[in-house]
């Protein structure tokens, strides 16, 4: 009974049940005991990406799930419209960096937890920064893709387990990405359909809805009137101007429904967000993080959706890896003659139907073969263009080459990283079989739309 009393009075009273006791429905690596609890506290380091609606919840949930070493990265400052759900922030915090305030508030309330804030963009950090964490949790509750502009060389690095959550209104998803086991972001990229854009001719000639009038004012009229001055969605005067122009146009065409609120919504692509859904999704992500780190239960395999619009629907889908995935798959095989120069190789890659990449830069084993930017690197590597790729790859018969550049067309263009397996004809050798390089960039490249809200 003495044991029972000491357990009862311990701060880890509830968590201990899960971490100290053996079970049958647990992960394969589960070794219950105080050592496990101590390891979670001392050695496991978790990065939370985003300190918004999901990030605030995640930091709290993780701090109360036995983790003590947390870091959080977010480039945004607190806004009034965050306060309906980002519970770590108060009115007097408006204007301060989210990451810093969130870290401070959680540390104030949960003793023993250390949270390092990073008030910057994710691309401001070197890839090494990310490789130091045990698990990366993504809490970017906007799923709009933003260009991930990185001059980082694609490098081989140890892949990390990732947990990812997203919400919109009463709906959300949580997923687990385990390198080598589950699909990566790129494998299931179709889960994030591109944002619908109106054709310019509709905006200019046949507007029908309030949104058409707003986008006309925002995308066409603004530039006509303010030559050279770019539109700033965070400037209320700019927004007001767009609203008034949209209202004028709507009246001209007899179109109802233009309001200031709708103008903001359309221009900023605002995704409605509420505290309860963020809480559900973050909790699911935190629980999965605890399970991955400790093995105390099975893990989600591998994609959970939650929908509370009509009743309550949850669904677990086990997505499978895309064996031809350009990020986590083995890479596209390209066979070449040993005489092919780097320039010819780049042309070939840019014309490759599966790659559709432009402005390609090429690296091999971390070495820059040709870089389009910055100019100084371009100049340094330019002379390689006329050399045979075979020689640049140290005459290895086969190897992995990483190509970065822009993929997609028109508005959907974004930076991408592609892995290619290059094999030279008539030379024998052993295949270099690294796996899944660059999946982290893949993930971030697709999921950096967090400047809009979170």
């Amino acid at each position, binding site marked *: *009974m003495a044991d*029972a009393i000491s*357990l*009862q*009075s*311990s*701060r880890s*009273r*509830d*968590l201990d049940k*899960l971490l100290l*006791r053996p*079970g*049958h*429905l647990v992960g394969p690596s589960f070794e219950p005991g105080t050592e496990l609890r101590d390891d979670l506290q001392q050695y496991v380091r978790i990065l939370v990406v985003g300190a918004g609606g999901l990030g605030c919840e995640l930091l*709290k*949930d993780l701090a*109360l799930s036995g983790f003590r070493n947390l870091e959080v990265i977010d480039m945004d400052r607190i806004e*009034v419209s965050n*306060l*309906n*759900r980002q519970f770590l922030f*108060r*009115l007097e915090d408006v204007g301060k960096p989210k990451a810093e305030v969130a870290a401070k508030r959680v540390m*104030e*309330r*949960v*003793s023993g937890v250390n949270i390092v804030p990073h008030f910057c963009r994710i691309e401001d950090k070197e890839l090494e920064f990310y490789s130091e964490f045990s698990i990366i949790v993504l809490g970017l509750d906007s799923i709009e893709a933003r260009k991930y502009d990185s001059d980082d060389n694609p490098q081989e690095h140890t892949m990390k387990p990732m947990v990812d959550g997203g919400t919109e209104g*009463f709906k959300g998803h949580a997923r687990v990405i385990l390198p080598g086991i589950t699909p990566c972001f790129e494998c299931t990229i179709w889960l994030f359909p591109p944002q619908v854009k109106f054709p310019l001719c509709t905006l200019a000639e*046949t*507007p*029908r809805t309030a949104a058409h009038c707003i986008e006309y004012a925002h995308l066409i009229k603004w530039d006509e009137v303010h030559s050279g001055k770019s539109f700033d969605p965070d400037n209320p005067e700019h927004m007001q101007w767009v609203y008034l122009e949209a209202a004028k146009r709507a009246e001209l*065409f007899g*179109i109802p429904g233009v309001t200031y609120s709708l103008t*903001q919504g359309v221009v900023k692509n*605002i995704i*409605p*967000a*509420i*505290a*309860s*859904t*963020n*809480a*559900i999704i973050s*909790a*699911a992500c*935190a*629980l999965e993080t*605890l399970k991955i780190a400790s093995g105390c*239960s*099975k*893990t*989600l395999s591998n994609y*959970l959706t939650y929908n*509370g*619009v009509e*009743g*309550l629907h949850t669904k677990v889908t086990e997505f499978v890896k895309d064996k031809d995935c350009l990020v986590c798959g083995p890479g596209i095989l390209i066979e070449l003659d040993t005489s092919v120069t780097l320039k010819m190789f780049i042309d070939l890659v840019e014309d490759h139907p599966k790659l559709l990449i432009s402005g390609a830069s090429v690296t091999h084993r971390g070495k820059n073969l040709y870089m389009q930017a910055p100019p100084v690197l371009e100049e340094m590597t330019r002379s390689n263009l006329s050399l045979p790729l075979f020689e640049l790859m140290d005459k290895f018969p086969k190897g992995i080459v990483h190509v970065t550049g822009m993929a997609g067309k028109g508005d959907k263009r974004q930076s991408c990283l592609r892995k290619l397996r290059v094999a030279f004809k008539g030379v024998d050798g052993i295949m270099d079989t690294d796996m899944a390089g660059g999946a982290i960039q893949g993930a971030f490249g697709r999921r950096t739309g967090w400047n809009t*809200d979170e």
Partner: protein
Amino acid sequence: MAEPKTKYDRQLRIWGEQGQTALEKASICLLNCGPTGSETLKNLVLGGIGSITVVDGSKVENGDLGNNFMVSESSLGQPKAKCVCAFLQELNDAVKAKFIEEHPVTLIETNPSFFSQFTLVVATQLVEDSMVKLDRICRDANVMLLFARSYGLSGFVRISVKEHAVIESKPDHFLDDLRLNNPWPELKEFTENIDLDTSDPVAHKHTPYILILVKMAKEWAKGHSGKLPSTREEKKEFKELIKSKTIATDEDNYKEAIEASFKVFAPQGISSDLTRILDDTCSEVESGSSDFWVMVAALKEFIANEGGGEAPLEGSIPDMTSSTELYVNLQKLYQAKAEADFLVVEQRVRDILKKIGRDPYSISKAVIKSFCKNARKLTVCRYKLIEEEFNSPILPEMQKYLTDEEYSVAVGFYILLRAVDRFSANYNTFPGQFDGAMDEDISRLKTTAVSLLSDLGCNGSTLTEDLINEMCRYGAAELHAVAAYIGGVASQEVIKLITRQFVPMRGTFIFNGIDHKSQLLSL
């Protein structure tokens, strides 16, 4: 204070001013402020709920610091309700927050009338006996009730309200109300004046698909003794016919017409869901009927008379390729018909109110208008008393769950969550709550679960040893992440109940934290 419109902007986009006003008028009572209850309230306070009353009789101890963010080291030894209430107040000064240091169980036993002052009671971490009593109290007082419980990696959420009628159910996907296969005279006439075979290519590619489809449906019916396409072959042929009318490859309106052709094939008249509501005995209204059912009675009359088998027209059309002029005129045409339908329904509502001896103007125009606009999406949710479910669940459903692999863990948790309460009633502790008696507790819990199953009439059904073990391992732990999940679900449902928008869950939600295959059980 911040401009509330800005602060609440992201949620106003979901439930609008009306929903927000409903939240701001609501008063919520929370029973037990462990992490499950505290997290539920946190989400409601952030959204601007009117008032909260936190009821808990315990003092903050060390263990609470490990699972509840609303208490901190300085709270040790203090009333938990007071500490949680203070933190919640910090989140939103527009909310009236108060606390009562009292054990909920005592309150249920000694002061049942206490609960009648609230809009809704959130009861967390209660055992079966108290749940049953509280349920009866709230049902009699006409107070909405929601139960939530976190238990290890399992938990549940259950709503208990006699009846919850939703006008603005706002489904994600719902067939537009375009009447392409059953146009009213003005739409027919409007279509007559349009020449699909216009030689002007600009006009041709800017004819909205509504007009194309109404015309084509008419043309088809003419050649098929008045019938619309019904077989797969006919539907295909109909689409080919539309395709044959295109004169250029870039005619998006014709592409849209082909994609929307299923709207022509859709059955006329009202759905079986709506029929069920119209046929409900509540639609036989008398003086005590709710406004909702009075409007249903009027709707029923409308459908049988002026509506000609159809509900009032919704009055909005989706965006589609079109010239501005045709689109705007079509929009006006649909709105005018919706307005006309509304006026008829309104008159019928007033007449019915008069007939049952009520003030004919006691239901506002705005409410009737919203009712008409959403007539096809009306939803009624009813919830059994929890005692009824506990004593006589729907057996065939129970048996189905017990044998369905998708449900096996969820229904196992359902049984075990009840079994642990029986266990605690017998042994004054939850199974596995203390170390040292695990083996004994496992076998006792197994016996308890088996006898519970047989009491429910599921003789011969068993639960897996693994799950029984697992439940003992949990030892009634309230893990923060699980509590935050359950609290999140509970608060989402509370919002739906109070705003009367969207559809609350029906049945009992069983959380499965092992692999997230959670389920709703309708028992």
